[in-house]
């Protein structure tokens, strides 16, 4: 049974601390979307001394660039994108108050320590599950950078959005432990 994770709009610190790498979670509440171009814009705003378009304190991000909504849809297909491309931006985002990110793909090395130090978690959604994950988004609003199209900063209201805890706040990295468990020795 998946652990219910409420994000209305902040990710609760006690709940987040209780997560262990490998846990299945079901997220409900608000997610803030981020893409390569979105992250770059936010960083540039901060570096030039401008206020960010919204307060990121306690927020859970979702690395996604949705496809256009058909009539009657909140968003089109909306699966996760690869987290590795955000390594350069994560320290800044965590410094701005972000407490977690939903994406897909692997993280290794120093950046995993940054999660622990900043009290943040990494949750993986299934890559290529776009049609089903788009249905878990009940509403979508563009908060900033509408000119970036799918890379605009959106606020998604999600219900029962499925993910797996990859990096917890205690040093766990589920991709590493899972691979070690299932790896078979080379055959002769």
């Amino acid at each position, binding site marked *: 049974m998946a652990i219910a994770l409420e994000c209305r709009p902040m990710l609760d610190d006690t709940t987040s601390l209780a997560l262990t790498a490998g846990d299945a979670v079901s997220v409900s509440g608000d997610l803030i979307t981020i893409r390569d171009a979105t992250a770059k814009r936010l960083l540039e705003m901060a570096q030039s001394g401008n206020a960010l378009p919204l307060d990121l304190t306690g927020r859970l991000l979702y690395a996604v*660039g949705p496809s256009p909504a058909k009539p009657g849809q909140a968003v089109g297909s909306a699966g996760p994108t690869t987290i590795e491309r955000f390594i350069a931006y994560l320290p800044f985002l965590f410094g701005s108050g972000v407490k977690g990110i939903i994406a897909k793909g692997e993280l290794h090395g120093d950046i995993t320590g940054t999660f622990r130090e900043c009290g943040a978690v990494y949750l993986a959604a299934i890559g*290529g599950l776009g049609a089903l994950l788009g249905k878990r988004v009940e509403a979508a609003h563009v908060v900033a950078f509408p000119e970036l199209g799918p890379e605009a900063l959106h606020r998604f209201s999600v219900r029962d959005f499925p993910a797996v805890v990859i990096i917890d706040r205690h040093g766990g990295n589920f991709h590493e432990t*899972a691979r070690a468990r299932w*790896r078979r020795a080379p055959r002769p």
Partner: protein
Amino acid sequence: MRTIDVRVLTETTASLLVDANYRIPPDILTALRAAADAEESDIGRQTLAHLVQNYEVAAAEGLPVCQDSGVTVVVLETGQDVHWVGGSIERAIFAGITQGISNGFLRWSVVGDPLARRMLSGAPPGVIHYEIVEGDGVRLTVASKGFGAENMSALRMFTPADGTAAVQDFVVDTVERAGANACPPIIVGVGIGGTFEKAAWLAKKAVLRPIDQRHPRAETAALEADLLQRINDLGIGPQGLGGTVTALAVNVEVYPTHIAGLPAAVNLGCHSNRRISIDL
């Protein structure tokens, strides 16, 4: 001599692009269903079952299987006895890609200037490859190449002394480094031989080949089987969550090369390896 108006390329490219994004190829869906039974890890089986459901819902409701409709790759195999009329072949195909993205509610995923990261008016919306074949037949293939897997692809120029073992290790290492990023279970396209660019093109052709077809040459088919086993022994599993199904298939293409060289390229395809071909 057969005369064909290029307008047919616009219409066909547009409709194939939408179809490819709503329905993954039947050979891949069959392999995913089989993998959902064969996978040994619980979380891996659950993940594969979700993927199968995603593809069934996308096809039934007319939704893009993935938000990353990728870079559109079009392969036009045209007979040397075909006379194309009515305008530019290239512009006709590009117009078809643009229409398909719009008609299908697909995400515009291409940036016109790769360094400045800017949209450019009139910039090519995809990549076209042409092959001239005998006769007056025409085959059009439209593929959507997502970049989770494309970004993890690799090419290396080996020497003859490095030999088969080095090429095999390179393929397996490329998959291991890609891990969950390439959206496993993946399809692995390998191109061996030719020149620098030929190896890459062979790898692309390999990743676009149906996965229920082994290479007709026995020794190449054996190489495919051996690589598949080694890759599935890595333990990466569906989405990197651990398991015994990391790749659905390894497709290898080979070509003559220089006496001093051994080029090898690995093009990874995610499980949404969207492609569709039609004979015109």
